[in-house]
């Protein structure tokens, strides 16, 4: 049985040779990086660099809008949701787009890997999952760690390891590693906290925001041609990275993405944040509220309307009226 990497190379080369895709969007390994990085393969030769391993974390739908009409993308189950979300919002057309789905063994968290491996993480050249172990190929040999110690938080509650609605599937299905939501206790703690404590919690984090907009740029759902944050007439959010302005910036982004039901809880915004703001605590809270209030999960049905474009006359009014003492 060929490996997922061998299969993805083969599939990509076939798509490129037949002209079914002008470009195959996938992953490649580069020295010095714990995670695989995106690759735009345009020729069968370039496609040889494609690979798949638990370092393939990036959600490649960030590039969906810049793909040509005939293109293919390597996707995990979670990434499919982001692409479908864009189809739902009529940002991309599914015609001409081929998905090479990967039976995902779970992906790693760079932060956890670095915490466990220290400087040796810099020499990582490959990673694979075997059973409940993640095996890292390092300069000084292989190192095995319990997968549960290094998996990205989101993988523990993943329900889409096997990508749905894709044309091609590579890799063998592998039993997912599940556990209680790693975010659970922190979410509960924040939920139980007083408003002032929550405000102070976010103030401490947003204070650090430098407004590099990596969270926005990487977000699969952030697809506006002109972002309200960049709008100068009027200026909704001052550009200065003060805590107050960062707070408004993050509030607006949270409103527009998870608040409007467009978040798939992929956690990419938190992953790319260079100053470690735990953004997923917010996206998740609002994501869960959308599920609770409107029984809606983004990116599962390309025909489904997004929740803010429809209504039910019996929608919740729990947010209305005078707050109870």
């Amino acid at each position, binding site marked *: 049985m060929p490996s997922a990497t061998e299969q993805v190379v083969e599939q990509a080369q076939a798509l490129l040779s037949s002209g079914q895709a002008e470009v195959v969007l996938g992953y490649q390994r*580069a020295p*010095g990086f714990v*995670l695989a990085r995106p690759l735009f393969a345009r020729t069968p030769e370039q496609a040889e660099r494609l690979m798949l391993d638990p370092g393939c974390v*990036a959600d490649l739908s960030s590039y969906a809008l810049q793909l040509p009409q005939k293109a293919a993308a390597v996707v995990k189950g979670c990434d499919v949701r982001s692409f479908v979300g864009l189809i739902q919002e009529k940002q991309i057309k599914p015609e001409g787009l081929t998905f090479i789905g990967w039976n995902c063994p779970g992906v790693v968290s760079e932060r956890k890997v670095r915490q466990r491996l220290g400087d040796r993480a810099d020499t990582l050249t490959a990673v694979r999952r075997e059973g409940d172990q993640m095996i890292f190929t390092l300069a000084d040999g292989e190192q095995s760690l319990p997968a549960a110690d290094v998996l990205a938080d989101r993988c523990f509650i993943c329900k889409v390891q096997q990508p749905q609605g894709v044309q091609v599937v590579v890799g063998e299905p592998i039993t997912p590693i599940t556990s209680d939501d790693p975010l659970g206790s922190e979410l509960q703690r924040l939920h139980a906290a007083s408003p002032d404590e929550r405000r102070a919690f976010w103030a401490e984090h947003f204070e650090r925001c430098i*407004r*590099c907009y*990596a969270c926005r740029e990487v977000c699969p759902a952030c697809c506006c041609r002109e972002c309200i944050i960049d709008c100068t007439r009027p200026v909704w959010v*001052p550009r200065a990275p003060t805590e107050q302005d960062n707070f408004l910036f993050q509030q607006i982004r949270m409103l527009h993405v998870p608040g409007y039901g467009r978040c798939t809880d992929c956690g990419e915004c938190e992953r790319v944040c260079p100053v470690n703001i735990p953004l997923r605590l917010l996206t998740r809270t609002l994501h869960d509220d959308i599920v609770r209030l409107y029984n809606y999960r983004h990116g599962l049905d390309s025909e489904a309307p997004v929740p803010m474009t429809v209504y039910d006359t019996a929608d919740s009014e729990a947010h209305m009226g005078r707050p109870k003492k």
Partner: protein
Amino acid sequence: MKAYQLRAEDLAKLILRAAAEREVWAPVRRNDLTLFERITDPAQIDWEADNVRVPLRGLFLPVQEALFTFRKEGAEVTLAAPQDEPTLAGRLIIGARLCDAAALEYLDRAFGDPLADAPYRRRRERDLIVAVTCEKERPYCFCEVASEVLSRPRGADWLLTRVEDRLLVEVLSEKGERLAQSFSDLLSEADSQLLEAARAIRVAIAGRISNNARFSPEGLPARLMAAWDSPVWQSESERCLGCGICTFLCPSCQCFDICDRAGILGGERYRCYDTCQFASFTKMASGENPRPTQSERLRNRVLHKFAYSNERFGATACVGCGRCVYLCPVGIDIREVVEMATKEAVPVE
């Protein structure tokens, strides 16, 4: 300049005494992240961690700062200076890496005469920087190749190098000498053995990272200018998300925007970081944009660091700290871009 020695155990004493007179800032670890923070106790300092995430320049060119405030009364407008930071005595910043300090030396040029940038210069003249020699290197460190950071320490007032239980204090500026005078009871003249040991440490690091850069600095500006039409800008920028991580966290980037924030009665003018990586950076009100795609914007970043700065200020802007490499969410590696762009380009004489 002079060199002194300090017993390692006296460093805390020195810091405490400095803290009695002025703010002391140092690397502090929090949220899995090391940042410069004001400290009151030397025990707060994280000497072990990697370089600070937000570089030293953030203390001299903050992510945002008020330039002045204004009040409006009818058609009249009155301007006032912003409230200065309560650090008129000058901060003592300890624990800066040599790469970050060297970047300030570059910024001294870029923000210097003619028309020197007043807020930056004010802080530079006021504050003291105590740099430290790195004890270990990372694979993304390429400071020596990029800017001879280890062999030409610069930009700081002191350089500390730990040699067993002693610290070598190399004075790098006049300000640094005055600082040494104020601690004369703790410092004694360094012996040649200590000087030699400290130099050897830096030579050893330089040796170990000599292959990290992947490119040769020889004639780099001309070779890069010759690569103007290289396909590499497009192919390497294709996966760029267009975020500002590489530039906002760069120790030598200087770009900023100037904006107003105002209510009906008044407001302030502030400046904040801006970046050549944003499409809006050069887009004119008319809609024209001289750098319309990420490809031109990547080229500008790389050429600015390794070619334009050399022509304009006589120094490479990149100090090889590696932040833009290891923080890029999509693995764009400036060393690789330079290597690939210059591989085939031949400079015209």
